[in-house]
């Protein structure tokens, strides 16, 4: 492999002596400060992996301070399905002493520590890991020189990683050029100088670290479409665009903001618009106003903002207006942990309202699913003339994954509003049919124009105090959501169809739970994993599935509450009255580790055997044999 700038010299950057060792996947954690651009290293690796038909998952922390302060980026890359960010790292790149101190414990035994010898002094003789001193700062300064000082350390490390994992240097160089191409020539040149310096760092210092990812099984990439790499918020925004959403309104809050930023930028190209409002109440109101004109609209927020939208959501339920509400969950209550993950808005989403408001709540399982759940939410909102809440979370919002490009020609939804004439018998709220509103601009054959209203009403929208009508209309609003429930596909069930344990998850816990299931099964425990994308209404048939397992363990990132059950567990217990439903919860603001789920299952099954498998440390695949 030839470095793109420098011709290969057989001197210091000599070709590796041995053939690369084959590995399935690797977890690389970069730890430094936020101004070091380590996120962009992760971004390059993620996109490279996407272009190489590898599945990519990244895990990123954003420090609460905007600049300065510690920051990490973790990328797991490999062949085939990568389900989670990985419990622990195989490689830790430590830029500073504090990075080393804070993250060395995340390294697996047998893993590799690459540390900046200009800043870090590791514990001497720590033979749990392969420790490699790399003069990251001085190497970068030497390569780039000039006023940039150590800017480019990130790219230097990228070069080094490219060498260790035998990555496609041509593709990486192309990505670097694309990334910096818009800026001046010097920046691209400096970046390439740093990259080459890292790549050419003497091989013999690397202790024969040389790997290559297993060859991809092309049959698993049958879609025939290339892979794309993006985060969950992007996928969600583009899913809405594909679904024909052209109007929206919002108010900024982390981690929802990037969805509204994307839509504000993209929508005008599609003839639409996104309004930044004065607050979340105005935002949902404007969005419902858009929907009223016949354009299904989106609003969104994170937990505190969803709370502000509740009264208007009640109106949308009563007036039966289609609407998409995205809630990218973070740690709560109140400002809570704004840059951490939590699944603690479930009950707010389902029940947080005045009055009887049957809600539709969906949740994506991974980044790719953010795209498809957005499309599905739009279909449901239109078909049932109802608000639909999408519960994403901080982990999905900021995580980068690669997935097959959607089949756009097949999926695109026509955004046109229907302003056709309505017949003389038009009723906005028929008791025997699902509401189909006539947007303003459409003529009504009877000459009697409808009022959409939050007061209880008769079929024509006239306010009423009739107890009979309130009972009938409440049932009308409830029954259409039940009808939706009955139409839903059976949820994804993996593993054994019956057995000791059924793991139940929702949202971003999907991946870690699937990996946990493998560990559980490998340990000889029979069990399956059921994942819910449709959380409210629930799909039919869960009762029978639950009955086939001894324990139903619901794993979710929220508190066990006053009665010892997480939010989904509580709802499932109420719904199925099945005492076998139990909870594994946590509130540390981080995504589930596989080991945490396995430990939770072990606790619930009182399985000493399963517990024992946990105490065996999983060595890194990079460990020297």
């Amino acid at each position: 492999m030839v470095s793109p700038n420098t011709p290969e010299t057989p001197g210091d950057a000599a070709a590796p002596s041995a053939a690369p060792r084959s590995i399935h996947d690797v977890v690389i954690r970069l730890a430094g400060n936020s101004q070091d651009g380590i996120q962009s290293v992760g971004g390059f690796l993620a996109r490279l992996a996407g272009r190489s038909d590898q599945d990519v998952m990244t895990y990123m922390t954003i420090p609460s301070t905007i600049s300065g302060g510690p920051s990490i980026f973790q990328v797991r890359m490999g062949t085939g399905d990568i389900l989670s960010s990985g419990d622990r790292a195989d490689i830790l790149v430590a830029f500073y002493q504090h990075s080393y101190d804070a993250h060395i414990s995340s390294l697996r035994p047998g893993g590799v520590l690459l540390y900046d010898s200009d800043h870090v002094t590791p514990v001497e003789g720590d033979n749990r890991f392969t420790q490699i001193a790399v003069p990251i700062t001085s190497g970068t300064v030497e390569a780039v020189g000039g006023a940039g000082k150590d800017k480019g350390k990130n790219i230097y490390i990228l070069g080094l990683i490219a060498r260790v994992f035998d990555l496609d240097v041509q593709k990486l160089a192309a990505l670097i050029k694309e990334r910096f191409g818009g800026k001046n020539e010097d920046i691209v040149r400096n970046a390439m100088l740093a990259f080459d310096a890292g790549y050419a760092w003497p091989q013999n210092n690397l202790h024969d670290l040389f790997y290559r990812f297993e060859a991809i099984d092309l049959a698993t990439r049958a879609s025939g479409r290339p892979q794309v790499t993006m985060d969950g918020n992007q996928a969600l925004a583009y899913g809405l665009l594909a679904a024909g959403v052209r109007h929206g309104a919002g108010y900024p809050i982390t981690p929802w903001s990037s969805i509204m930023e994307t839509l504000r930028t993209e929508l005008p190209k599609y003839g639409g618009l996104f309004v930044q409002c004065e607050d979340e109440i105005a935002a949902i109101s404007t969005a419902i106003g858009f929907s009223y004109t016949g354009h299904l609209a989106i609003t969104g927020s994170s937990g505190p903002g969803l709370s502000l939208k509740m009264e208007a959501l009640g109106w949308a339920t009563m007036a039966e207006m289609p609407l998409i509400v995205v809630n990218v969950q973070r740690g709560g209550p109140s400002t809570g942990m704004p840059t951490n993950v939590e699944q603690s808005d479930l009950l707010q989403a389902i029940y947080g309202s005045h009055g009887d408001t049957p809600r539709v709540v969906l949740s994506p399982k991974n980044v790719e699913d953010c795209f498809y759940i957005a499309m599905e939410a739009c279909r449901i909102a239109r078909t049932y003339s109802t608000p639909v809440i999408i519960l994403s979370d901080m982990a999905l919002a900021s995580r980068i994954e690669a997935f097959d490009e959607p089949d756009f020609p097949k999926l695109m939804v026509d955004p046109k509003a229907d302003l056709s004439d309505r017949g003389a018998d038009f009723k906005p709220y028929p008791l025997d049919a699902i509401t189909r509103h006539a947007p303003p601009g459409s003529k009504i054959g009877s000459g009697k124009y409808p009022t959409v209203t939050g007061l209880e009403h008769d079929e024509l929208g006239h306010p009423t105090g009739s107890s009979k009508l309130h009972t009938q209309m409440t049932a009308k609003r409830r029954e259409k959501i039940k009808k939706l429930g009955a139409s839903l596909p059976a949820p994804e069930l993996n593993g054994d169809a019956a057995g000791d344990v059924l793991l139940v998850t929702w949202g971003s816990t999907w991946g870690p739970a699937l990996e946990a299931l493998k560990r559980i099964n490998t340990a000889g425990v029979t069990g399956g994993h059921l994942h819910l994308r449709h959380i409210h209404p629930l799909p039919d048939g869960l009762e029978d599935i639950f009955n086939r397992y001894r324990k139903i363990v619901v794993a979710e990132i929220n508190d066990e509450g006053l009665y010892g059950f997480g939010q989904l567990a509580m709802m499932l217990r109420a719904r199925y009255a099945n005492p076998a439903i139990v909870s594994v919860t946590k509130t540390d603001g981080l995504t589930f580790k596989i080991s945490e789920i396995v430990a939770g299952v072990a606790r619930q099954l009182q399985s000493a055997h399963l517990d024992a498998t946990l105490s065996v440390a999983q060595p890194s695949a990079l460990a020297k044999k």
Partner: protein
Amino acid sequence: MSSPTLFSPPTPAITTAVPLTKKILTADHPTWCPGCGDFAVLASFYRVLEKLQYPHEKIVTFAGIGCSSRFPYFVNTHGGHYIHGRALPFAAGISLGNDDLHVFVFGGDGDGFSIGGNHLVHTARKNVNLTYVIMDNSVYGLTKKQTSPTSPIGFKTKTDPTGAIDQPINPMRTLLNTGATFVARSHATQVNHMVEMMTRAAKHPGFSVVEILSECVEFYAGAFDSSIPRKGGTWSLIQEKKHDGTPEDADRHDVTDEVAAFKLAGQAWPGSFGVFYENNVRKTKNVLEAELVTKARERTKNATDLQLLQATFAKMR
């Protein structure tokens, strides 16, 4: 904000060549107390629509919550009754969602200046193209006599049994401050004046607001007597500049002069009635958003939605 691609072509089946009359525009019988000032506002609004003759299906009457906010039930047009204080952002969605519509919002002083105060500021400053009529009775009518943000100091209510103690807002100053591009004041006892103000407001391109003093006979009878001549009050009309070069004209009010408008707003109670301020120069949000679309469409060479999404995803490979 209308884009031709976002609407299906209306089918020309129903032909309404019939002119809009009060009879056609009348819907449910108002539930207001006999003698409530809001009746006159409604009657004037029918006359405004009779004058303007907009296509029936393109008129939208919208409101929040309050006695005054029941308005849309009494007008036979597309319309809605939303939640307390939030009708303006909803109506902004209607106006920006379909620029072809004529959007009217009605509400009370509590709805507009209290719970909805912040929305008023922002819908106005954005100059969203719609007309807002505030029926100010200086009290909370629907909830039966609590203090409102325009209740004068000393007015006894159920929440201020010994008389209101908080400084009321000055509606005209507040409205001028929001950046609204058309600000007028009228009185429910002056039907012709209301019709004129609402008609001018409707024709104004941008955010137009008319505050109408509308007596709540049930909970604040006599509130506005000081501006009713037959009750001994003075009706003081704003004389607008005619730009006719006459010496009298120098003293008349220039509606484009914001400073003069603020001066008028500072007059002692009961103050003057008419158009305080009008700005036809500032672009509406509807126009500004449409310009963004035009520019973006030029930049993307009118690519289809499918082409746009595919191109975006190609960059993320």
